[in-house]
């Protein structure tokens, strides 16, 4: 199926439900890894909004991005509980292992606060990370 047809199908899936925007954007982000200006325009037309209104929503939430980043991503928790368990000391080594190949995204809490430092890769969670385990995780991403 073409990209346009995919987008039209996603929009048709959601357009009629109340408060369609966020679930719709989640599906678009998952399908295309970004929500481009053209996509915003198509969504705006379907939901009877201006593109500015759609863009305002897209740019508000951390989960949505305007451009795709094809690199594998590791979300590393940097919130207080993981800080208390020493995550900040691991960041430099993780960045070095990642280089430009892997994206290390900060995330603020994965709900694993008693067994941090914690990270998420896709829907897989990793806890009790030390430097060696985190570097290994980055290398295998």
């Amino acid at each position, binding site marked *: 199926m073409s990209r346009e047809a995919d987008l039209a199908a996603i929009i048709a899936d959601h357009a009629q439900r109340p408060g369609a925007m966020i679930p719709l954007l989640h599906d678009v982000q998952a399908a295309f890894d970004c929500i481009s200006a053209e996509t915003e325009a198509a969504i705006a037309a379907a939901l009877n909004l201006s593109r500015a209104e759609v863009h305002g929503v897209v740019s508000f939430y951390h989960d949505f991005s305007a451009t795709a980043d094809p690199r594998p991503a590791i979300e590393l928790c940097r919130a207080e*509980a993981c800080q*208390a*368990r020493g995550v900040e000391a691991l960041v430099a080594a993780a960045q070095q292992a990642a280089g430009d190949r892997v994206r290390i995204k900060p995330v603020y809490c994965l709900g*694993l606060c008693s067994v941090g430092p914690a990270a998420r890769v896709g*829907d897989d969670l990793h*806890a009790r990370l030390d430097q060696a385990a985190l570097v290994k995780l980055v290398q295998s991403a």
Partner: protein
Amino acid sequence: MNAVRISDDALALACGANAVAAAFEAAGWTVEWVSSWGMHWLEPLVEVNGIGWGPMTADRVGEVIEGRADDLCIGPIAAHPFIARQQRLTFARAGRTRPLSLEDYAATGGWQGLERARSLDPAQVIAEVIASGLRGRGGAGFPAGIKWQTVAIAPGGEKYVVCNADEGDSGTFADRMLMEGDPLQLLEGMAICAHAVGAGHGYIYVRSEYPHAIAKLKSALALAESRLAPFTVEVRVGAGAYVCGEETALLNSIEGKRGEVRAKPPLPALEGLFGKPTVVNNVLTLAAVPHILSPGGAEFYARLGIDRSKGTMPIQLAGNVRHGGLYETAFGITLGDLVGRIGGGTASGRPVKAVQVGGPLGAYIHPSQFDLPFDYEAFAAANALIGHGGVVVFDDNTDMAALARFAFEFCAAESCGKCTPCRIGSTRGAELIDRLRAGGKAQADAVEALPQMHNARKAGRSREESLNLIEDLCEVMQLGSLCALGGFTPYPVRSALKHWPEDFA
């Protein structure tokens, strides 16, 4: 057939439960996936005939099968001091049932509260919730029954029940554990609320950082659809905005808008989701309701706790703590007991320096205040908050100035931007702490040097002047912000400055 029980809670999986389960299966054992007991330092915890072993690794499964691995064995799990000392009402099923088993749920008292509630007049249901003394567990501690009553008597045919499952506070995971471990109880609580206030449809707004909870809720909804009918529930997934845990921002997000905070009034109870009267309650508030509506439940609940904080609180021990996990107990336990006796001190073995209660917006509490009882009013009187019941422990390696700066930085990153004290104050606050730590400021910065900035100071500030300025900024944020994000960010900052001024040198 030999059977082993292992938790499929996200935390157990993150600690390697899948590999452990695979090793048991390879040995011909049956794996029964249950909820987590909440003893996180022991995860993955495996249970064979009531006896527990943990933290388990796949390479030692053979020893457990042979009844060895004594160093990992904790004996009967239910008798473990960490479990035996608790008073579990909301988490009564934790570790004991399969999260998505209707059979297990019904066998442990499930649906009794809903059946009884539906046999009662809605006003009677609300009266029982008021009598129980249940207060909102999301942080503000507003009496749940009063909120329900406001929605029930609000004019309008269409009303909503919204469950706030946007558990963004660091150090909290009780909502996640409840949604993953006992999702049916949450749905039952929502259905009781819907009956009480006259709502036909509900939403659960879960943060996107909780994929396992989202999956469990959706499965539970499919299973319980006929039980809940005519009430219907929909799961909505957040999109990574911390501020959407604030109830009005959450409502905007469900409506498909930017998660900006709304000014109150109007209260969401009168004009909430899509402008209709709406109950917004936290996961733990709604999950406590089935117990309260069971026969004699309200009276039992009200007998627990102290003063105006009634019932039990699922407290979460997190951060640098030896025995981290979920500890549900009646209000009134002291912080020192929680951190020392129950939590076993720090995981690193070093002295405790500070404890943050209530998430990123909660005050840092000094060990000299460890006699503070877990009680909404007592914490408020000490310029602190219980929030969602998260307790994060820090050892003596911690730099409190870095944490104070982080509080401002976090607020700046997550501010919805609607009100000025939060949007701008947070950024200025982080800069002020940087300057303070750099020993004041030698000269004006680029903006201050502009000719338009007539009133800006051209010379450096002394430490005392910088401290006064931070204090002034904190006051503006605390009193002038629209919601708790800007309004409570001063708590961690002020408490860190007050108790650990040496860290800011």
